[in-house]
């Protein structure tokens, strides 16, 4: 379990990092996914670009009703309250349940999202928010809606010459209700079904069903689900192809319990 040889680079600025992508190198943020993949030789890139030392690689800024979370912000920082307000409390609750603290100390929100494992926590949760992923490429930054960021198993809307720079989420008002449920038998296991429900006062509630080996499914208006979770969860899951009976049961349960938790969220 030792990686195949690769060149290691630590670019000093973002344009330099983007330029390195052309040579077949892969970016590394916290290394919690690519590290094992390198060790298992499932990934054998020519080079690894260490993003951790770039300017503004991590940190959170709020302006104009938008919260910008730099891609290199660790799960642990979010768990510890790096994001302010109601949004921060919701994200801290998600972060707290990602694997173990040693993983959270290194793993980053951007690294996890860009890796695009459908079972990963941020991949499953972020589409619930009407926000954007901020990509940076040779031509500068562009925004990709979070709901369409993950496109398949380990594939995202990032172009080959782009890096994930940040995530932008709307600041949420007090009174926002949130429900998040995932099925893991033990910490560190990937979720077998995740659902979350976001109800912002005055807006249509949103829900996500995820971690079913497919990209997350956004339900942009979850009003019907919240009104009749039993029936709607069954209807939604019945329409998904290829789930074995257990995963289907988990998917239904995830939706129902996320709705219930959002209802109980004060």
């Amino acid at each position, binding site marked *: 379990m030792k990686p*195949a040889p690769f060149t290691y680079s630590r670019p000093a600025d973002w344009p330099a990092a983007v330029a390195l992508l052309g040579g077949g190198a892969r970016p590394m943020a916290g290394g919690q996914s690519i590290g094992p993949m390198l060790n298992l030789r499932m990934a054998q890139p020519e080079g690894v670009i260490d993003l951790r030392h770039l300017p503004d690689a991590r940190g959170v800024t709020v302006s104009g009703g938008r919260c910008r979370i730099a891609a290199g912000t660790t799960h642990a920082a979010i768990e510890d309250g790096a994001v302010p307000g109601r949004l921060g409390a919701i994200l801290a609750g998600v972060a707290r349940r990602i694997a173990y603290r040693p993983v959270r100390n290194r793993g980053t929100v951007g690294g996890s999202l860009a890796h695009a494992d459908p079972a990963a926590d941020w991949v499953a949760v972020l589409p619930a928010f009407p926000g954007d992923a901020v990509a940076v490429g040779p031509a500068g930054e562009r925004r990709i809606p979070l709901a369409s960021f993950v496109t398949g198993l380990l594939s995202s809307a990032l172009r080959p010459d782009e890096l994930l720079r940040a995530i932008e989420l709307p600041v949420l008002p007090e009174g926002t209700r949130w429900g998040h449920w995932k099925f893991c038998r033990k910490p*560190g*296991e990937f979720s077998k079904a995740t659902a979350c429900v976001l109800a912002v006062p005055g807006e249509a509630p949103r829900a996500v069903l995820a971690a079913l080996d497919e990209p997350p499914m956004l339900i942009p208006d979850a009003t019907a689900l919240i009104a009749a979770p039993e029936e709607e969860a069954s209807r939604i899951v019945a329409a998904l192809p290829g789930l074995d009976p*257990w995963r289907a049961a988990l998917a239904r349960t995830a939706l129902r319990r996320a709705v219930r938790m959002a209802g109980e969220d004060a």
Partner: protein
Amino acid sequence: MSPDGVGQGGGQGVGASLLRKEDARFLHGRGRYVGDIRPAGLLEVAFLRSPVAHARLLGVGKPADAEARVFTMADLAGVGGIRAASALPGFRVSEQSVLASGKLRYVGEAIAACVASSRAAAEDLAAACSLDYEELPVVSDMLTARAPGAPLIHEHWPDNAFLETQRDEDLSDLDGIAAAKVTRQLRTARQCMVPMEGRGVLAEWDPRLEQLVVTSSTQQPHIIRSGLSEVLGLDEGSIRVIAPDLGGGFGYKGILLPEEIACAWLAMRLERPVRWIEDRLEHLTANANCREHHYVVTAWADRNGRLLGAEVDATVDSGAYSSYPFSACLEAAQIGSIFPGPYTLPRFRFRTVSACTNKPPILPYRGVARTGVCYALETTMDALARQLGISPARIREVNLVPPDAMPYRNLVGKVFDSGDYPEALRRAVAHFDLDRIAARQAAGECVGFGLAVFCEQGAHGTSVYHGWGIPFVPGYEQAMARFTPDGVLEIRTGLQNHGQGMETTFAQVAHEVLGVPAARVRVVHGDTALTPYSTGTWGSRAAVMGGGAVAEACRLLGERALAIGASLLQAEPGGVEISGGAVRRRDGGAEVTLEEVARTWYRRPQNLPRGVDPGGLEVTGGYRPDPDTGTHSYACHAVVARVDTETGEVVLEDYVIVEDAGQMLNPMIVDGQVLGGLAQGVGTALYEEMPFDASGQPLAGTLADYLVPGAAELPATRIDHMETPSPWTRFGQKGIGESGAIGPPAAIVNAVNDALHRFGAEVMDLPASPARVIEALEKARAR
């Protein structure tokens, strides 16, 4: 109680919960494992392993620039194959080539050893090799292994079975007289043992001593020496095996490894130290090697629940080869003799098969066959109880061997030494409010109560093993005891400490006999050059065998010290005794410490009496219990489990273990053994499973896929000790090392099935994973 000397210890002897002497180094990260040892000039080995489960190996292409650093079986001239035969009639012998030659028989089988200055570079070499092979049809399942037309794994065999055993008895009349009859088909999953430290070996040639020095993470250094000698053609004197600290054994390190042999050969050939350290990927994908059983059980009972008879047809997936020394049939061939369990079963027939498949060779894992047998028997007992409408406690109570029948010889000849099995059951049940559980069930909660009662034969010796005819037979266990010139007591044992706390318990035994403070006793083990021969630590034998041997060695040493001490006290030898670490006059008054005795022997020999034993203060003592058919510890596990019927998740609400290890050497260590075993048993019951696909590929490659329960997944557990001494052992102690891992699958699944009963659902196969629970519920719903 008969034990001589128990209680003399003053808080450090037999029965004291002395803190473990070895823990300071473990807790401070100062343990020294194979992976910590880096001699100058070290070369690392990575093995090129088979990517397929069954194929004809046509060739290995070595990288053009590295032909001298890649070794195949063609290079290992003169190295023999691994043969672990059994003398049981009908046993078919497999020969395992150290590196695959001619055929590949399981995914992960070592094909070539790639040597480099770092492990990463060695893995690069392995990745640069090419393989030419022709795939063959795969035997991926033990039940189809013997089907007509199944591809033959060993082509000179008539079919894919190492061994079949049976006991015939006509049970055809039981259908007519029994009030209840149940038949169940059950399966346990193939598991990995997952010790914290995997295997590892470092081999060096010592030109001064003309000796091959093999440092290995093994439970059996002396047996490994014999095995290496046989395969390499060296005499045993020119091999030294060192076992340093071990990060767990569990049976996984009771084997002569092909990797060990390859590294030993490479060290001699290259005249450099050579090391291989197993990584987790190798562990999971090349070494899922235990626990996979299949049972068809039928049992009959009268209306009171008395067993009238049982029939079992058991198959064990033994994998592709017979491992040295325990052989491929140790599990299956034991099933017949342990299936009657702790009960007075009157009639019995069985058939067992050790099936050969394209999977890693089976090794006996903590609990060995008993975990599967207990699962099959105890779930069957609950099924009978449900059919009869009596409680699980009741059906066990009427069938358990009663205390007044001890020692009890059962119908297959197992002899239980002592104990009160029904009392263990009663005590366990008394920990629970069964009415409250019934009320919760009536209120619609999916909650259940489960029991498992079993006994564990441990420390069985010559009389049991000689008939197996495997490469070793345990005989007398020996220990050496000696005083250093300053009076430190050194104990040397060929047993191996891999978590059992032997450095503490043997010091307690020595303290018990000689009164030397435990802190002044050093237990030396893990080196064939320093210790007497032993078959090692396995089969819950160390406390009984080592405890007896250490006590005997100390007794002999005490006699030598007594003679010197008497002379120093100007007393007759009959007028003095040893107590509290000193030789004392029986008439009171004068005493001379053992330290002073030691100082006299070594440094002031002018003060020794005439006629002193010139052998001095260094002795070897030997021990074997009589009879040596083994101790039987026993236990009742009782558990309350709640099932989430929407997710299939099982939550263990409460867990009680009542166990009897006879006289405990150290109750705290017994607790640790029981709890550690419980963790592994919970893994077998609910989590651990290495699935293989039809092409024989293992499907879980990381610990995110192969789930092992951690501390957070384990229930709060209460342990209640009974202490019925064994009449046959030195202090009355019994082997208890595996007990904790035996009961959980049966007890937990019984609780799950109690909870699922109102849905008409029943879980049969292990682990009782959420997917299997949901499947059982859906199957019941569809009926």
